[in-house]
């Protein structure tokens, strides 16, 4: 039986390592690098205990706990405690994603593409490819844990001792291991690779939410979440190893389950019924606009949630900002004092610019989708039927303009709701709303630029994203780097009046609107008159 199942697993491991000779090292090294660079910059930015304690103050609110996890050692907020509090959870999520993607790639994706069938026709054990994938990921997680642990220790920071550093690494590795096993299990249950990724990611998301609720209200709940185990190690504070042991034990248990199910089923089949899709279209889909919305539905919803959370994350730190600003040299550089305005208000104007530019990303992506569709040869289905060019382009432009507004609104709502619950003297929703909405004309100029490029230079549409990146760079870092004025004037965001720091400037806003309208109109005309490539 052993031979039937696992013959040539060693060869499969070598084959798998060969296929992933770049993918695995890149993942592992980037994750280690991320941890190291954060630890290093924490050491650099928060060198004094006073600064760290001030930061700890801003972290003590439910919104922050829900987002990054429970703060252990907040009363003595060392660099180590900061790492375990602010970085461990997010790193664990990234490690989990790495495991999910790589396991799927070597199990269900290979099976779906018919490669497993090819391998099984050779004298190779039935479970060899599954076992090989899990063993390689086990090695990868152990390696990641060790490198991270030794790397953190080697920084020589007083609060990061060898035991804590290794535990930090092990917490990451064991979380990764757990999700590799979960994914291997879903690769047996679901018949498609997309389903496998979907279910595994859903477990990851559920773990995060379960832990968030648990951390805020009931600690026991967090112990049912694999991500709660990672933060539960209290690395660098209490150094508790048993959550790591728990995660490893659970992983072995689930992996054995995956191997058992693999034995029971036929190649290509799964245990979960694959749900047949709709036989007929609903009325909502039956128009170019309906199609465009349907194609981008998932993306729109994800971005909407993301923008709300972005607002919440900024809002949740507003509470104790003043104290923090007073002690941060870097922030003082970025925000020179202005008469009559609190530092919080100044900080708000800066984050409004940042938020509005981040909200531009989904709007641009919705717009550029029409170019992607053309490239895939799918716009011809519409153009060859009774759909005009303007209607087609409009079905992407309209949602793009509209959702830019929705995204900004959601971010502001998130900002306000978090600020409301953490600040003693909360900022009014209206003033936040005004400060953010004044950026809409600039966002629309960016969309207009994209439409213009689609109409006249379809090969260069990605320039609009570079233009946004440039704007971000100039506006975000402009204050600190002392760039000359004309550089920021090249970006539409450079013209937006920064309320409440500056007066509302009607002329600038109108000029931006005019530019957006001109660019869009020209783009529509260009699109009407050019050859479509597909």
């Amino acid at each position, binding site marked *: 039986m052993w031979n039937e199942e696992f013959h040539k697993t060693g060869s499969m491991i070598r084959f798998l390592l060969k296929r992933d000779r770049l993918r695995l090292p890149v993942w592992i090294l980037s994750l280690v690098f991320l941890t190291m660079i954060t630890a290093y910059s924490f050491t650099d930015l928060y060198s004094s205990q006073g600064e760290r304690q001030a930061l700890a103050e801003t972290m003590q609110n439910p919104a922050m706990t829900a987002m990054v996890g429970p703060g252990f050692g907040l009363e003595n907020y060392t660099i180590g405690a900061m790492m375990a509090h602010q970085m461990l959870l997010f790193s664990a999520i990234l490690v989990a994603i790495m495991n999910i993607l790589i396991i799927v790639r070597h199990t269900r994706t290979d099976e779906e593409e018919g490669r497993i069938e090819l391998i099984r026709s050779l004298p190779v054990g039935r479970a060899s490819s599954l076992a090989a994938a899990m063993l390689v990921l086990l090695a990868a997680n152990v390696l990641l844990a060790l490198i991270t642990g030794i790397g953190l220790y080697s920084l020589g920071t007083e609060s990061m001792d060898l035991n804590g550093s290794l535990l930090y690494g092990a917490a990451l590795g064991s979380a990764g291991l757990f999700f590799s096993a979960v994914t291997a299990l879903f690769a047996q249950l679901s018949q498609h690779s997309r389903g496998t990724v979907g279910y595994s990611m859903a477990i990851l998301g559920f773990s995060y939410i379960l832990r968030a609720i648990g951390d805020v209200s009931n600690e026991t709940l967090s112990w049912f979440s694999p991500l709660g185990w990672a933060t539960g190690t209290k690395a660098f504070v209490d150094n508790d190893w048993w959550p790591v042991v728990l995660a490893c034990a659970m992983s072995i248990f689930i992996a054995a389950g995956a191997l058992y199910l693999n034995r029971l089923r036929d190649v290509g089949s799964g245990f979960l019924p694959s749900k047949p899709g709709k*036989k007929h*279209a609903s009325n909502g889909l*039956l128009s170019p606009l309906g199609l465009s919305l349907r194609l981008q539905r998932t993306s729109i919803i994800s971005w909407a949630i993301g923008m709300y959370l972005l607002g919440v994350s900024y809002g949740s730190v507003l509470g104790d900002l003043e104290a923090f600003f007073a002690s941060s040299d870097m922030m003082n550089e970025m925000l020179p004092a202005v008469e009559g305005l609190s530092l919080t208000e100044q900080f708000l104007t800066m984050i409004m610019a940042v938020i509005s530019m981040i909200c531009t990303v989904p709007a641009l992506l919705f717009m550029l989708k029409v170019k992607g569709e053309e490239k*895939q040869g799918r716009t011809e*289905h519409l*153009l*060859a039927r009774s759909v005009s060019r303007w209607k087609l382009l409009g079905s992407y432009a309209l949602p793009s303009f509209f959702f830019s507004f929705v995204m900004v609104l959601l971010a502001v709502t998130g900002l306000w709701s978090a600020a409301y619950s953490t600040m003693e003297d909360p900022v009014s929703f209206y003033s936040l709303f005004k400060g953010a909405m004044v950026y809409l004309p600039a966002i629309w100029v960016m969309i207009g630029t994209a439409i213009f490029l689609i109409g006249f230079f379809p090969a260069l549409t990605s320039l609009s994203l570079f233009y946004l990146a440039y704007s971000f760079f100039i506006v975000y870092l402009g204050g600190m780097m002392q760039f000359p004025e004309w550089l920021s004037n090249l970006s539409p965001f450079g013209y937006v009046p920064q309320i409440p720091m500056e007066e509302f400037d009607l002329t600038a806003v109108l000029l931006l609107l005019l530019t957006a309208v001109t660019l869009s109109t020209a783009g529509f005309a260009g699109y009407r008159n050019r050859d*479509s490539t*597909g």
Partner: protein
Amino acid sequence: MTVLHTRNLTKKFGKFTALNGVDLEVNSGEVVGFIGPNGAGKSTAIRILLGIIKPTSGEAQIFGRNVWKDAVDIHAKVAYVPGDVNLWPNLTGGEVIDLFMKLRGGLNKSRRDALIQRFNLDPSKKCRTYSKGNRQKIALIAAFASDADLYILDEPTSGLDPLMEKVFQECVLEAKAAGKSILLSSHILSEVEKLCDRIAIIRQGVIIESGTLEELRHLTRTQLLVKTQHTITDLQEMIGVYDIETNEHGALSFQIDSEALDSVIKHVSQFGLIKLESSPPTLEDLFMKHYEVNKDASKTGAGGVS
């Protein structure tokens, strides 16, 4: 009545001339075959007819209207099936069929369901799981279920199995019987031979031959196989006789021009016929003839001989 016609249609992509003065005509109730090697300009011509790309010069009209300016109105009565059907991976086949039908206008559910059955398609699957043939079926179902007057089909059967190809041919003949017009670009010459009233052959952006299959055959030689009691003499001196060969059974095989048929048969029958086989040129012969000429021409650099 002319449904579709182009005059001197020319399209240049930069310096490359994809179409060079193409004249094409489809009359009401007619099936026109549009054949030519890959890269000859078939799809370019079709994309111009659909208003997806703009001609550099010349005119193209469908239902007497300009294909670029009046594209949207024209398309209400045109059904198009591309050769390479790219679909949205996360929509189901059924959803795409409904969308395609609705975008033209009107959704005839009974016709749709009958065609789904005839083409044996499972419409509940996501497009990402369909093979090339199944994706083509989706476009074909949406096209034939619609109430179009003109069908433009660009290599619509390249991925279909022989059974489905037969269903396709039935659909074309039914449409023709209902008085619809069809422009069929295809590589499968037997299919064109079977379905089309007229044929246009395009090569390097130029229409080099067009007419009914009969007319085209007239331009080409017939293959004869003859066995006689007595040895045939003086055959090689006759006008319009080519490539005489004697096979191992003592029979003669040769090609003759259509005009020479009468005199050659009279001459040959003097020798006591035992066996006479005549095979008319297939479309493939016609096609290959032009193709071979093209190859020779490019070798010698002498230019078009046709």
